[in-house]
Every structure is written in structure tokens, then in C-alpha cells.
């Protein structure tokens, strides 16, 4: 069996996982990134708002959370979460490696998104907030409908770059045995010594798959960005 046939036969395992099992491979990598980026993004809006707040009681815990999560390697955060999560039942789910990976990646995304959101909130023109207040919106209303949308739009390019980075970072889940692309590459190779000639072609394929996926995600993000900026110009409230 030559290299091309071998890669061709392993492609389904690399892309969607082993037959008869739950989704794995690249599909699982994308699912992990998608869920953690969306849930983490919502959490980050909260942490970012707290960090931008004038009250110390809100600012300190949020800043500490971001500093701690960003200060340790993701691989360590993953093991720590897995260690705690695998012994506890949470929301009726069992302590599986996939659940640990989701929790760890969500915390990680929340910490990495919180900082740009905080910076975005601090860049909201005071006049915009004043206008909203004069029009009679409450503080929480101003936050959800004026300040956060402004912050997220102005920080959009940084946020999408970070989301693509999180997709690549999902590869570390191999340490707790979640069947993502990196793990399945190892499973496909197995412990068979006769397979040692397949390492180079297989890992070149894995690298190419990550590369293509990251490129596609980046392109999608810039298309989305273009639409968003187009919409903002029609809503632009700043005086000309």
C-alpha cells in the first residue's frame, strides 16, 4: 500500500472520526472550538464589562481570572480542569475527557476575549453613552445595546484572529485523549512499527488540514467583518 492510498483510507478518520463512534477528527476540533468560542465569548462579555468597571469589587475578580488563565499553559489548565471535572457530575453529564476539554477551552476563550472587549468598552466615545442616557435608556440597556455592540465591533478583527488561534489550540486536547484531529492522527498510525514510514505523509496531511481550515476560517471571518463594518457605517452616530 503506497502513501497516497494510506492517506486516502485514513482521511475519513482524520476528518470525521472512526466509524461507529461519536464525531471525531477535524469535525470534533471545529465543534470544540465553536462551542468554546461562543460560550467563552458570552462569558468574556461579562468579564470584560467587569474589568472596565469603575468598581474595584467587580474589577479585581475579573482581572484576577484573566491573569490566572492567561498565565498558565493551556495544556496545564486542561489537566487541572480534567482532574477536578472527572470526579464531579455537572449538569447531569458524566466526567468525560470531551467535557473537560470543553470547560477548559471555554475558560481559556473567556480569558483571551475579555481583554479586547475591555479595551473596546473603554474606547466607546462618552458622547455615545450620553446620547443613549438622554434618550432615556437605563444603564443596563445602554450596556447591552450601545456599549457592548460598539466594543465588539471595534475589536472585531482581534477577536476573530483569537478565535482562529483557539481552533489551532484545540490540538492540545490530545493529552487527555479527546479524539480530535491530532489524537486521531496518532490512532491511525497506531503502535505498529511497520507504519513508521507513514509518519511524514500523515503529519504533512494533518498540518495541511489545520492550515486549510485556519485559512478558510480567517476568510470567513474577514467576510463577516466586512458585512459588520458596512452595517456600522449606516448606524454611525458620531458627528461628521
Amino acid at each position: 500500500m503506497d502513501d497516497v492510498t494510506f492517506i486516502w483510507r485514513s482521511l475519513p478518520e482524520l476528518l470525521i472520526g472512526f466509524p461507529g463512534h461519536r464525531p471525531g477528527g477535524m469535525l470534533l476540533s471545529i465543534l470544540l472550538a465553536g462551542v468554546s468560542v461562543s460560550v467563552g465569548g458570552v462569558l468574556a462579555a461579562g468579564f470584560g464589562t467587569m474589568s472596565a468597571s469603575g468598581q474595584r469589587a467587580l474589577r479585581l475578580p475579573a482581572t484576577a481570572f484573566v491573569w490566572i488563565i492567561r498565565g498558565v499553559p493551556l495544556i496545564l489548565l486542561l489537566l487541572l480542569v480534567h482532574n477536578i471535572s472527572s470526579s464531579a457530575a455537572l449538569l447531569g453529564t458524566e466526567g468525560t475527557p470531551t467535557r473537560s476539554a470543553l470547560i477548559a477551552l471555554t475558560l481559556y476563550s473567556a480569558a483571551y476575549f475579555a481583554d479586547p472587549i475591555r479595551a473596546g468598552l473603554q474606547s466607546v466615545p462618552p458622547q455615545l453613552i450620553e446620547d443613549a442616557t438622554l434618550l432615556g435608556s437605563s444603564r443596563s440597556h445602554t450596556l447591552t445595546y450601545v456599549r457592548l455592540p460598539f466594543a465588539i465591533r471595534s475589536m472585531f478583527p482581534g477577536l476573530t484572529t483569537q478565535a482562529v488561534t483557539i481552533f489551532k489550540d484545540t490540538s492540545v486536547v490530545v493529552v487527555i485523549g479527546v479524539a480530535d484531529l491530532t489524537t486521531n492522527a496518532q490512532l491511525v498510525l497506531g503502535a505498529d512499527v511497520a507504519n513508521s514510514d507513514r509518519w511524514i505523509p500523515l503529519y504533512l496531511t494533518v498540518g495541511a488540514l489545520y492550515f486549510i481550515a485556519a485559512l478558510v476560517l480567517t476568510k470567513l471571518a474577514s467576510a463577516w467583518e466586512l458585512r459588520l463594518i458596512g452595517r456600522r457605517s449606516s448606524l454611525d452616530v458620531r458627528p461628521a
Partner: protein
Amino acid sequence: MANWLTREALERLVDGLVVTVGLTIVTTFGALLLGGILASGRRSRSRAIRRASGAFVDVFRNVPALVLIIFFAFAVPTTVPQSDRAAVFFDNWLWNNLDGLTGVPIPYYAVAAAAALIANAGAHLGEVIRGGLSTIPAEEIESARLLGAGRFRLWWSVAFPGALRSSFPAVSSRLIHNMKNTALASFVAVPELFHSMQGEITRSFRATEFLALVALIYLGLAAAFSMTLQRVETHLLRGRRG
């Protein structure tokens, strides 16, 4: 001292810490240099060099660091026939002397992981420093040229430090990220801090304790590294912005 943290365990963690710090230092300088070269390459007059640097940056930024480490450490040795593999990658004059020279064990895997981290961080830095290059005033380059600086001199004393200076905040956050990425080298059995920690957990079954302790060590390392980088930045900016 807590009963799980024996003297021997602590010593093994310190050994790992030394390798982590060493790996961080080597990859930091390597990545800065590679980043500088790639950034200049993308502004080269030759189209081939521009293309090649651009392709390098794209490839090594978009493939996860862990996959690069596995590729360099595990896949590259398989290119050599099995009968010669040990002699080329593990047991020869170079590797044996490398261990003796540095005092810490440096297996092939460590060199491979360092190369992968340098390629990954270097590609990211190349993109960041490229932005910095465009902020260097033309008259600064012109006056250096008039003073007789050659091409290399111009790059080393004017362009590279100038680009670093203006892109330093982004450079330092990438370098801190790279420091944390050294933990990925544990995956290919490089005896660094994370790997020592995994060994201690296997020995003692005290996972939570060791994970928390090592998390604190990494937080300390990140804080110390970011303070060092801040000092470097002050040093770079001295006499500027005046």
C-alpha cells in the same frame, strides 16, 4: 513541608524548571532573529524571497505548535532508515557532547521541539515585526547609509532594533505565549517542568496538588518574564520619543 512534596520530588521539579527556562531563552532569541529575518524578507526587493518568506509565515502560523513539535520530533527521524536512526539522532558525538557541555540532558527531541517552537513563534513575530519595519523613518535609514553602513550593518543596527521598538507590546505578548508553549514539548518527552510534573503525578497519585503547584510556578514565570520584557522595552525606548 507537605508530605506529598518530598525533597526528591522538589529536586526533579527544579530540574524540569531549568530545562523550561533554558528552552524559553533559546526559543526567545531564535524566534526574534527568525522573525526579524522573515519580516525583512517580506519587504525584500527580490520577488522570490518575498514569496518564500510569506509562505513560511503562513504555513508556520497556521499549523498548531503541537503538530509542528510532533512532526519535528517523531516524524523527521523516520526519514532515515531504521538501521541508522539511532546513530544519527540519538547516540553520536554531537548529542553526547551537547549533554556534557550544558550539564542538562539535551536529547534530539529537545532540539526538535526548540526548532518547532522557533519556527512557530518566529512566523508570528515575522508578521508583527513587519508592521514595525514600516514605521522606521526613511531619513533614519538614509542617514545610516550616508554614514557608510553596509546592508548587514543597516539591518542589524537600524532596521531590526527600530522595528522591534515600535512593535514591542505585540512582540512581548507573543514571547510570553511562546514561554507557555514550551510545556507542549513534554508531549515528545522533553524533560521540562510540565514533564517532570507528570512524572511526579504518576509516582505519587497527587494530581491536584502538583498541578496547582506547577500552575503557580508558571504564573510566577509569566510574571517574571513579562517584567523582564518591560525592562527591555524601557531600555529600547530610552532616549526616544523625546
